[in-house]
């Protein structure tokens, strides 16, 4: 049987399609879904969200920046508020894949896949992102921190669509993003760290420190955040962070990296977050 193709013209049409066809695949840019397509059985049908105008806008509103789930990375990179208020997200997105991937890939797709190596996911954790999920039953908001429940497991219901990603404004004054991969472009991350803090960074407050590729899902390191909270960045603090990271995570070895390398990199990147603040104040 050949694959059915639905291209909803509105969000309501998309919700209806989802409700009527729980067995159809949701598709955005296809940069995750299309990989290996020839080696899998054809799906019964697809619901294509790419370019759906209700999902592609980026809007700065009251206390929040709202990024449509199907806005491509290329579009995210041209947005002024993203550049001004969320430099960690901007840098992260600019390092995803290469030009060709950025032209099609979307935030909604990164979140939909919820791979432990999804680059934007630790950034969403560090920025307290809220997801808007919609269906014909209505919409609901879920903190990204709660959304990913396990290895590629999420709270998304069968009939739901990720509509938007909301980032609270004003944004944290201190933001950090670093990933380690084999080469600069087109490399799946071995480890990535996103962090943020409020204020100027002389004293760290409301600290968030998140990592990817060190567990079955993107995680916040609560113990490290607690260690940093209210502290003045210093070389000693950076050392304490290294030790706290070692207690907090147990990365694995796989074809992309080894557990010791991942741990060492995670420690160094978390320490770098503190050391950058020390340098900024010197």
């Amino acid at each position: 049987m050949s694959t059915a193709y639905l291209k909803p013209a509105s969000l309501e049409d998309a919700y209806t399609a989802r409700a009527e066809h729980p067995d159809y695949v949701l598709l955005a840019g296809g940069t995750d879904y299309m990989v290996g397509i020839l080696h899998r059985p054809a799906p019964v049908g697809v619901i294509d969200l790419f370019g759906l105008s209700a999902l592609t806008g980026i809007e700065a509103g009251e206390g929040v920046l709202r990024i449509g789930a199907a806005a491509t990375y290329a579009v995210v990179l041209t947005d002024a508020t993203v550049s001004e208020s969320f430099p960690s997200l901007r840098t992260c997105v600019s390092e995803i894949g290469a030009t060709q991937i950025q032209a099609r890939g979307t935030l909604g797709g990164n979140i939909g896949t919820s791979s432990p190596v999804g680059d934007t996911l630790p950034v969403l954790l560090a920025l307290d992102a809220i997801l808007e999920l919609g269906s014909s039953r209505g919409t609901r908001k879920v903190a990204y921190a709660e959304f990913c429940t396990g290895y590629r497991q999420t709270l998304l219901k069968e009939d739901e669509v990720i509509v938007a990603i909301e980032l609270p404004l004003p944004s944290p004054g201190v933001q950090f993003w670093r990933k380690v991969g084999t080469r600069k472009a087109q490399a799946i991350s071995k480890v990535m760290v996103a962090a943020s803090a409020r204020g100027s960074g002389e004293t760290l407050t409301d600290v968030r420190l998140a990592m990817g590729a060190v567990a079955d899902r993107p995680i916040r390191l609560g113990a490290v955040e607690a260690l940093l909270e209210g502290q003045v960045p210093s070389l000693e603090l950076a050392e304490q962070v290294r030790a706290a990271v070692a207690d907090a995570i147990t990365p694995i070895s796989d074809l992309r990296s080894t557990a010791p390398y991942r741990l060492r990199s995670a420690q160094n990147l978390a320490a770098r977050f503190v050391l950058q603040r020390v340098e900024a104040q010197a």
Partner: protein
Amino acid sequence: MKIELQVNGETRVVEASPIARLLDVLREEIHLTGTKEGCGEGECGACTILIDGEPVNSCLVPVAQVQGCELTTIEGLAASCGYAEAGATPLQTAIVEWGGTQCGICTPGIAVCAQALLRDEPAPSRARIREALAGNLCRCTGYQLIVDAVAAAAEGGQS
């Protein structure tokens, strides 16, 4: 399903699965074999074409998604830049002259990607050229001569 495509300025109608890879439709249904398959996984850029002027990996694009879009493959690149008669853009000529192509598998992807770069940024730095071509792998040239060719085309003022 029946799908209507605009390829290199012509309307083509094909019968294909909506999630057939655009790469396969171009090569096997429309017989435009200039676009190459390297990895089939979005990594190598050999299959790069322009969709509404932007470089995209055609191996990752389900064909149904490009209905109503302007597709430019290597075969139509020169004409799309106003060099129909010459048959090659100055950039393409530079790639040949500088030795920026050896086996040639990566070359169509590199040419369309670099052409889009020079359209948007007529005088890119060498670092910028390398960044724009970061999604195009080449196993032969070592990249240096490709970057030289793109830089030379940019310096020539015509691309």
